[in-house]
């Protein structure tokens, strides 16, 4: 997030696009709902599903999956055409406006309504006017913006809109991606990414290579960016990657195109899985290493607003399980590393030295203070709002972005759009929530959400078990007939092994950041004959 959770009350309104906030980030969802319902703040929601926030919204746009860019361009078309944008901000803080403005010309409300499958084009105009009147407005998004082959462009579009409205660098504004895992922000910050060292310093830079060789006392670090998750699976499938060391991940459940993932893992010479349970992935491992759960750990985690927070040991380690850092160190030292970390604090001290944005953060400080990176020195209070004076590159760059359709389009054989996501009661691959009684009892199995029109076309009754198939595979699953999804769009949560959504999803990637297009693929639904 460019801004902070605590600023939610400071916004005059919110645009929530591609985020089912009340189910996936429930506490933030409640804070937004509270402001709208109890304080009269404005809310605009765009999502293919009539999510809970849609009920609170002043304008709700049930857009077709994969058409975020079109609707954002549509809003901006109106804002530019009616001169409602923040000229002062655009002139002083941004560049590339003319080119972008030109690209927006064709995104008339009618053109956009047609792409997005919206009936009332006039609502786009009214919502755009409303947005321009909200000073400031905060934009919230999540995987409903990013998990497309056009994911990077989707993110850039959100930035275009917020720069255009002058909502960047101000309290209560911002582009606020809601991160889906408790330490996904931290894992990225720490350089658990193929192209960057800690604090996003590119590996393909001689200067950075030298810096880290010196810091780590090693020679010849690679300057060749590595492979992303899905590329690793493809390389394993092709026989180029021979060994995979997998810590606390369950790719058989979480990666797209499950069949392909299983084949890839089977081809490995060595699969090491370090986890708390014998996960679906661990069952294919050559070695399984039992690790501690988060309640048995000390260390730090960084949340979606860049706040670095202390985690404490609540429970004694599970008998036989070891800390993840201890296991890595043991393996490293067997391979000649000579590391001497005795506790997480030792590692954190090293992190501070090589991660400029964390340099001022100490274990002692975060026990008392809420510190958000960047925090370069111990006397720095941390940064609640990014880009206050200027952007990372100086001026904010508007990018002309064209709407491009998703990779798979529906056809005769696969006439429906399948979109996947999470539900309130479960998390990711279900390893934790399905082993927690109340959550598991509340939602014991998966279901597919189908609009009543589609259900009646296919003659499905609520609760019936049907088959859902794509070009990758097929599953059996119970139908939930609901008006939440648009007609022609079905929704499937991906937490359930028995009805695994990722048997169906497509593993095509965004060309820049390599995110898979989980949110759209073509599918067919069929009755299961007795």
């Amino acid at each position, binding site marked *: 997030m460019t801004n902070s*959770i605590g600023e939610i009350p400071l916004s005059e309104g919110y645009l929530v696009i591609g985020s089912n906030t009340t189910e996936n*980030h*429930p*506490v933030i969802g409640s804070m937004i709902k*509270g402001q709208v319902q109890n304080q009269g703040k404005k809310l605009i929601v765009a999502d293919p599903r009539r999510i809970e926030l849609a009920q609170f919204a002043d304008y709700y746009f049930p857009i077709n999956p994969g058409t975020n860019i079109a609707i954002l361009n549509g809003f901006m078309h109106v804002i530019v055409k009616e001169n409602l944008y923040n000229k002062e901000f655009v002139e002083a803080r941004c560049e590339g406006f003319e080119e972008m403005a030109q690209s927006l010309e064709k995104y008339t409300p009618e053109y956009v309504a047609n792409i997005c499958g919206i009936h009332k084009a006039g609502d786009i105009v009214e919502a755009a006017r409303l947005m321009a009147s909200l000073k400031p407005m905060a934009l919230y998004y999540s995987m409903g913006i990013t998990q497309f082959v056009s994911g990077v462009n989707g993110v850039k579009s959100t930035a275009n809109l917020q720069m255009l409205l002058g909502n960047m660098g101000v309290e209560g504004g911002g582009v606020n991606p809601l991160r*889906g*895992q*408790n330490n996904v922000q*931290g*894992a990225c910050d*720490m350089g*658990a*990414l193929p192209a960057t060292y800690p604090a996003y310093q590119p*590996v393909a830079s001689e200067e950075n290579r030298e810096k880290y060789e010196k810091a780590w006392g090693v020679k010849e670090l*690679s300057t060749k*960016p*590595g*492979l992303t*998750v899905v590329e*690793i699976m493809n390389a*394993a499938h092709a026989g180029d990657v*021979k*060994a*995979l*060391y997998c*810590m606390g*991940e369950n790719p058989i459940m*979480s990666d797209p195109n499950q069949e392909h993932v299983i084949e890839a893992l089977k081809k490995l*010479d*060595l699969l*090491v899985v370090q986890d708390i349970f*014998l996960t679906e992935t661990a069952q294919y491992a*050559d070695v399984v*290493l*039992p*690790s501690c*759960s988060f*309640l048995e750990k000390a260390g*730090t985690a960084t949340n*979606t607003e860049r*706040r670095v927070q202390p*985690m404490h040991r*609540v429970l*004694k380690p599970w*008998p*036989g*399980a070891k800390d*993840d850092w201890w296991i890595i160190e*043991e393996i490293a030292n*067997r*391979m000649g590393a000579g590391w001497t970390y005795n506790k*997480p604090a030792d*590692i954190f001290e090293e992190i501070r030295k090589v991660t400029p944005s964390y340099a001022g953060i100490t274990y002692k400080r975060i026990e008392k203070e809420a510190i958000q990176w960047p925090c370069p020195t111990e006397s720095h209070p941390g940064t609640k709002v990014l880009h206050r004076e200027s952007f990372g590159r100086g001026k904010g760059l508007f990018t002309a972005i064209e709407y491009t359709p998703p990779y798979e389009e529906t056809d005769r054989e696969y006439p429906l759009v399948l979109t996947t996501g999470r539900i309130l009661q*479960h998390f990711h691959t279900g390893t934790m*929530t399905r082993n*927690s*009684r*109340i959550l598991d*009892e509340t939602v014991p199995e998966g279901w597919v959400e189908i609009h009543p029109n589609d259900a009646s076309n296919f003659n499905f009754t609520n609760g019936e078990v049907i088959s859902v198939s794509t070009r990758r595979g097929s599953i059996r699953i119970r139908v939930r007939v609901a008006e939440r999804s648009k007609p022609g769009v079905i929704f499937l949560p991906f937490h359930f092994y028995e009805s695994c959504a990722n048997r169906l999803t497509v593993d095509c990637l965004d060309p820049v950041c390599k995110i*898979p297009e989980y949110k759209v693929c073509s599918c067919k639904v069929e009755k299961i004959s007795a």
Partner: protein
Amino acid sequence: MNKIKLTIDGKVVSGYPNQTILEVASDNGIDIPHLCYHPKLSKSGQCRLCIVRIGGKMLKASCTELAMDGMNVVTEDEGIIAARKLVLGLLLQEGNHNCLYCEANGDCELQRYCRMHDMEPPSREIPFHEREVDYVSSNALRRNENVCILCGRCVRACGELQVSSIWGFAERGHRTHLIADDDRRIGESNCVKCGTCVQLCPTGALSFQPVLGKGLNWELSKESSICIYCGVGCKIDFYTNPQGQLVKAMGNDEGPNKGQLCVKGRFGFDFAQSPKRLSKPLVRKDGILSEASWKEALDFVAAGLTKIKEEHGPDAIAGLSSAKCTNEENYLMQKFMRAVVGTNNVDHCARL
């Protein structure tokens, strides 16, 4: 904003013009007994326990009365104590309070004020109106309205913090009672089980189902950590009993969540003590995953990675780090892959 000055119990204190007397008192470290008031919720002035004397005359509810410049407030005198005892007496009379059988025993605001005011058990001359007990409809929440003081915190918490507006009051007078949705039991309502109402309930009227039988409130120890689920980073106080069992999770007010939690952050932690947890390393022998010692397993991994590195080069090895692990562990994993194995093939589920 200009500050105002007033006198509370002979002490000159300052506050802001839009603050209530109770808020000014509380900011200045003066504790006025209260039940229906909660700093996170709107004010209802229902319970009248927080009465104070203003200007030596009137008794007013300090939770709703605005502080004014020059005001002279007394928070305790004989008359106030008598009035508070009357309020507490009526509350006791109205319900069926027996701490022996109550989940809140030792962590109950009513109990605290009754002990403070040396209350005796109520006479049973006036029969109390038996209200509903719902221990079964929800697997998450229990409700015993016979210890409910109708303070309405749960109703306001659900409407103002969680914004689900499940709880409401029905009927009037001594028949007033809590309902969920349009007069359903909680388990049959649209309750999302966030537990905010229980966290703010001043008595044992609402309690958590899984806490039952896991120990007495004063035996529990508390340690904070960060929720393992989504990226909001809710700070949670985890309570464990002397046997080391996890008993309950309560939202911590200092976290970004400001004390709130969702159903996963409230009830999603059984997995940590599930008998299915792995407790021995496993190494595949003759095609079967078999138990091994840590030394054997770690030697196997190190030898296997070294061999592949020597035969196929470092880029034939890849590592998946985890967004469920700490910063320290993620840092070490990428350092291991880069500095020890020699490849940048390290990623995690950021995109998944």
